[in-house]
């Protein structure tokens, strides 16, 4: 058991790259990221390679005599035109993905997300289901200075909440973002969504999760002292599980209403 945990930790720890995520667009984003990365690597090999060769070959200690050329129109044209071509190659798919990211038409459901210092509020539009989502008790206890609790013993330290956002797999979920006080940003890397929550304004984003599971993120816009302590947790479940969950939530909401 401990061996398994250790292995899992070791896998997670030295993560080098962006995750592909769980939506078509998060994967497209990942592909763009890799494309531009490999272009950079290719350019680096050529440019750094040339410079490193020059650093070894053209040094005074090896008796190199300095040439005195200082102009070449053709060279200048070549290294202006080639980067422009590479940029055009990158610009087209980037623009295409961006257009898709912005197309939030015809959603299956809409959730209004409001940022507070320092928690999130989720409101399932038209469903009479709304609740706050705050840092989980276990993390909240351990995070205090001098708490004496080792963060490594806390499951999902700082990335766990009391009540996650629950969404159905395969549905087009539109989120409307705003804030009650200062700026926040709702970020879930696996959904490739990061959008600012701005007081007095509504922002829009959407995702269609392709896999069930629990996905974690954080507030990404500095929002005061507890900015580091307002995680986002999204649970993606099968449609019928979601329906059942929603019915329970509505029942609770109605009981609360009738009790009043």
């Amino acid at each position, binding site marked *: 058991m401990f061996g398994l945990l250790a292995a899992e930790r070791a896998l997670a720890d030295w993560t080098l790259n962006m995750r592909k995520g769980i939506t078509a667009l998060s994967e497209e984003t990942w592909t763009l990221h890799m494309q531009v990365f490999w272009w950079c690597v290719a350019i680096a090999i050529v440019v750094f390679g040339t*410079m490193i060769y020059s650093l070894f070959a053209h040094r005074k200690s090896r008796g190199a005599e300095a040439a005195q050329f200082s102009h070449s129109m053709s060279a200048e044209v070549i290294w202006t035109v080639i980067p422009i071509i590479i940029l055009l190659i*990158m610009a087209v798919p980037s623009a295409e993905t961006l257009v898709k990211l912005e197309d939030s038409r015809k959603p299956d459901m809409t959730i209004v997300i409001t940022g507070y210092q320092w928690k999130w509020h989720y409101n399932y539009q038209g469903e009479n289901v709304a609740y706050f989502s705050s840092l989980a008790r276990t993390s909240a206890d*351990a995070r205090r200075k001098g708490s004496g*609790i080792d963060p490594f013993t806390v499951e999902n330290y700082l990335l766990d909440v009391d009540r996650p956002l629950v969404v159905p797999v395969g549905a087009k979920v539109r989120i409307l973002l705003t804030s009650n006080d200062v700026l926040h940003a709702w970020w879930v890397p696996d959904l*490739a969504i*990061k959008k600012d929550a701005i007081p007095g304004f509504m922002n829009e984003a959407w995702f269609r999760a392709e896999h069930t599971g629990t996905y974690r993120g954080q507030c990404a816009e500095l929002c005061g002292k507890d900015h580091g302590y307002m995680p986002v947790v999204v649970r993606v479940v099968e449609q019928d599980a979601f329906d059942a969950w929603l019915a329970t939530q509505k029942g609770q909401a109605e009981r609360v209403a009738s009790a009043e």
Partner: protein
Amino acid sequence: MTTAVADRAHGDEQHGHHGPAKGLTRWLFTTNHKDIGTLYLVFSLIMFFVGGSMALVVRSELFTPGLQFVHPEFFNQMTTMHALVMIFGAVMPAFVGLANWMIPMMIGAPDMALPRMNNWSFWILPVAFSILLSTLFMPGGAPAGGWTMYPPLVLQTGDAFPFLIFSVHLMGLSSIMGAINVIVTILNMRTENMSLLKMPMFVWTWLITAYLLIAVMPVLAGAVTMLLTDQFFGTSFFLAAGGGDPVMFQHIFWFFGHPEVYIMILPAFGIVSEIIPTFARKPLFGHDSMVYAASSIAFLSFIVWAHHMFTVGMPLTGQLFFMFATMLIAVPTGVKVFNWAATMWRGSMTFETPMLFSLAFLFLFTIGGFSGLMLAIVPADIQYHDSYFVVAHFHYVLVPGAIFGIMAAVYYWLPKWTGTMYNETLGKWHFWLSTIFVNVTFFPMHFLGLAGMPRRIPDYATQFADFNSVASVGAIGFGLSQLLFAWVILQCVRRNGDAATNEVWDNPKGLEWTVPSPAPYHTFDEPPQVSSQAAFS
């Protein structure tokens, strides 16, 4: 009337051949460009250590998950103040100091054009930073809303708030006066035969920088003044409840902020354009295209500001425009890097400390450029934005970019300033330690950002622990290495080392190498004669 005449007579006498005044008044009342340059540089070095100490508080806290040393409130004060001190206190004054020392000597002028304003523009700075640093001891602590001062959060600052605004105003005032001085000096005081296109690259890049400063510092001043009136005078520029728009602040701020980025890098471009030809023993490749590239970068810097805010919810067309404009910056920046590489090509290179720092600049700034290109791709930027990937990116362009440029300049010109050669062995130690530790510190931050760690958090999930520890070790190593830098400079100032020749290096180009080392208190009483064919860099 008589006083005026007397003052003038006194002024004329001051411009005679005697040396500086004695004691503290020399520094308080000086109008000498070399003295003022020295003041700027010393101030900048002190601020570099102040800002660096703040960074070490941040990195110590982030060494391991959990809170060990500070509370989140103080952590945020440290990140905010670190940025303000480093940008406005360390990097910008260092460049102004180098401009003061070198521009008159490089263009054959006896001094800066506006010497009294020069004195004032420096002495505002210690006042501004005394005000800013004093906020650390105020109720509610120092500003903690980030150096970007985004409302509404910045309006939650405690007693420090008006002091923050006022100190930013003062810094802006100082920068604008410094920039006016640079422009007037360069446009009016060049020696005969030095046409604009024959100016050394350092002078050129500073001329462009000065225009950027004059264009954008008032914009920053306007933005923070609107914050001030929102807070105290009932306006609602940035408050939605009163019909304002918090995002408008970001647009205004980054209209200043992006040119500001180039204000901090263009002079460094100029510095390495001076140093690489000297140590490659070969003229700078494509001098004119370097000028055009720097000018294009300056122009483009005005139309890319919103790439700092791709997550605020802009219209699609706006995002597309800012993405394409941002990508375009890679072209002139590429031209500069290729020209430096071509300058080295088939040269006869030696690797003294200034050259080593310039080479590290070339490689590591380019890495920052690559991550900059990645950040231009909007869908990918949505993942990178406000993560440690961004922290890695801007530290690569600012530390091994701007700051290595400054260090290269200090090693390059220190023998001219002090008349004493620095200790080459210690200089090389300083270089290698700095270069290794800067990478240990900032390279892992790319991985942290891609793994999903947001910036400006005092504590983090345990899967980020390992790379954070590595970065913290690197930061402490980098910080300690800089003590060596201070030591090397101190040794030179104390004349502890070999006497420097007038040329210092192996046949360097430029008028600064025609005057004795150390440079006399007054240089070029007569405009120096240069041939119309001479190349200056």
